[in-house]
């Protein structure tokens, strides 16, 4: 976009490589959950014990959302950006007609069905109106939209979110718990086996490599101006509301199918989901929204509208403990999360303990 002197580009590329190296060695996490401050400090060569410097969780800022996010700039890689690595061709998953015939093929297809129609295909574990495919476009195939094939070859991996090494199935369990505001299928559950089989099959021919081009959402450069709620509201009204609704609740077909996914509110992902992080959502939005028009919003618009989207109430974080401040301190101590912050006189997430899980009954709700 902007033309910079070669020296600057060279330095930037070097820094990128260093950061990517650190990420790969230490704190790799596809959603960037919780590791943002750690990684940033590591990149700056500081000890990660200084982490607590950032916004005080016990005293959420009383200011409006306007003043909140974006200071200091969002410098992290959401994941190694596919678009930035022109040297390597982006992996292409096999075409669906190549799914094998037989029992294994049946399980792969079942995984695909769960992926694209999650509430119907795995109702016991889904508590909202979302589907995997809402955030992983083209049935988990699309580069730059957190494709399944790139995730599959990135596990097992250490995740700062869980502070442990997770397998791919354990990572999927997290999706159900947070993004689907549901219940994690037990280890080895047919739903997880099906999803894993589908991901494995999509990754046919890919190299085991957590830095595969196309993985995650291409990281967005830090915004020129601090992300802003009011600007985000305008971006939303002119680019998003037509499909997702002015109230963020999405839109259903007459027969009750959630066609445009709810972005906030009771039918959306909960506060523990990766998409609840401003940097993650900004990266997704920039690359993929409006649907079929990825890359048309400016970086600033993507940051602003991400902040706006994530400044609304949504289901409680299932890790909630004692109070919103406590929970913020434990799991949201980053400027990328609005959880526990005050917006329009209300503290986000101050909705008490999580509600008991209720299986999805998408139609008729």
């Amino acid at each position, binding site marked *: 976009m902007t033309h910079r002197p070669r020296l600057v580009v060279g330095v930037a590329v070097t820094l990128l490589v260093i950061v990517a190296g650190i990420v790969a060695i230490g704190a790799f996490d596809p959603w960037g959950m919780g590791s943002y401050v750690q990684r940033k400090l590591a990149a700056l060569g500081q000890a990660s014990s200084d982490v607590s410097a950032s916004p005080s969780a016990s005293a959420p800022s009383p200011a409006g959302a306007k003043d909140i996010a974006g200071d200091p700039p969002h410098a992290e890689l959401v994941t190694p950006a596919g678009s930035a690595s022109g040297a390597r061709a982006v992996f292409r998953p096999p075409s669906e007609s190549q799914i094998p015939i037989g029992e294994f093929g049946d399980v792969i297809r079942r995984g695909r069905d769960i992926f694209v129609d999650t509430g119907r295909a795995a109702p016991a574990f889904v508590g909202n109106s979302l589907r995997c495919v809402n955030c992983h476009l083209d049935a988990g195939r699309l580069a730059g939209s957190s494709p399944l094939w790139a995730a599959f070859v990135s596990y097992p991996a250490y995740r700062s979110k869980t502070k442990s090494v997770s397998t791919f199935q354990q990572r999927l369990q997290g999706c159900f718990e947070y993004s689907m505001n549901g219940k994690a299928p037990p280890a080895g559950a047919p739903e997880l086996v099906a999803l894993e089989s589908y991901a494995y099959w999509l990754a046919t021919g890919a190299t085991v490599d957590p830095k595969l081009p196309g993985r995650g959402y291409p990281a967005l450069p830090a915004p020129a101006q601090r992300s802003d709620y009011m600007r985000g509201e305008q971006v939303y009204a002119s680019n998003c509301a037509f*499909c997702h609704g002015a109230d963020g609740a999405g*839109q*259903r077909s007459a027969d009750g199918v959630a066609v445009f996914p709810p972005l906030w509110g009771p039918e959306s992902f909960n506060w523990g989901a990766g998409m609840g992080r401003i940097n993650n959502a900004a990266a997704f939005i920039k690359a993929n929204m409006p649907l079929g*028009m990825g890359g048309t919003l400016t970086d600033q618009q993507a940051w602003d509208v991400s902040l706006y989207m994530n400044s609304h109430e949504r289901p409680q974080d299932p890790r909630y403990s004692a109070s919103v401040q406590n929970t913020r301190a434990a799991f949201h101590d980053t400027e990328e999360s609005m959880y526990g912050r005050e917006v329009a006189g209300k503290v986000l997430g101050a909705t008490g303990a999580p509600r008991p899980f209720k299986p999805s009954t998408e139609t008729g709700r």
Partner: protein
Amino acid sequence: MRLGRSLSWVALGIVVSTNVHADGAAIAQQGAGSAVACQSCHGVAGEGIAAAGFPRLAGMGASYLQRQLEAFAEGTRSNAVMMPIAKALSAADRKAVASYYAAMPFGGDAAMPAAAALRDAKAPSGTASAAAAPAPSVGVTLATRGRWSDTLPACEQCHGPGGRGVGADFPPLVGQSAAYLAAQLTAFKSKARPAGPLNLMGIVAQKLSDADVQEVANYYAALPAGGAR
């Protein structure tokens, strides 16, 4: 007292007269001024006349229909028959008749003999189970999966499962004739028809070849309107 009473008659008269002109049913059935009755081309049940390329109106979203009438009236959507009709209607008339057709039952095959016949003709190849099916046709792929190598979303990602429409702004595709659908996609592509909000259809249509247009139009024209998901 007397003055009050006559004033209230005047008020009632105003209400009645504005209602008369914004009565969607009356416009649809009898026309208004120089605008002929909608049903003379779009059918008594708003089902359209597939063979003539006259589209179904029943069950289309109210905002969508109103936007089309406004576009015809302004001349931004070009159609020799519809432009003078839409111009002859007041803004209130256009709104009323859009609401009237939006509220009409969408209907099933009974109202769509052409679609039913086309589907029956194709039934032998179309009713096989999904298992071990050969590679799906271009039409079904574009409708249900899109072509993401071109960043082209599936039709149903906005028009809903089965192309049955979503809300007031995303009209059903099922229940329209192949001729009408293909003509509209072609018009979007050539910019003869305004692309609508966010330029959504403009961007989509640019990514469709002429063969794609025909395939996807045929697919929706052959789909049952009230069928299962």
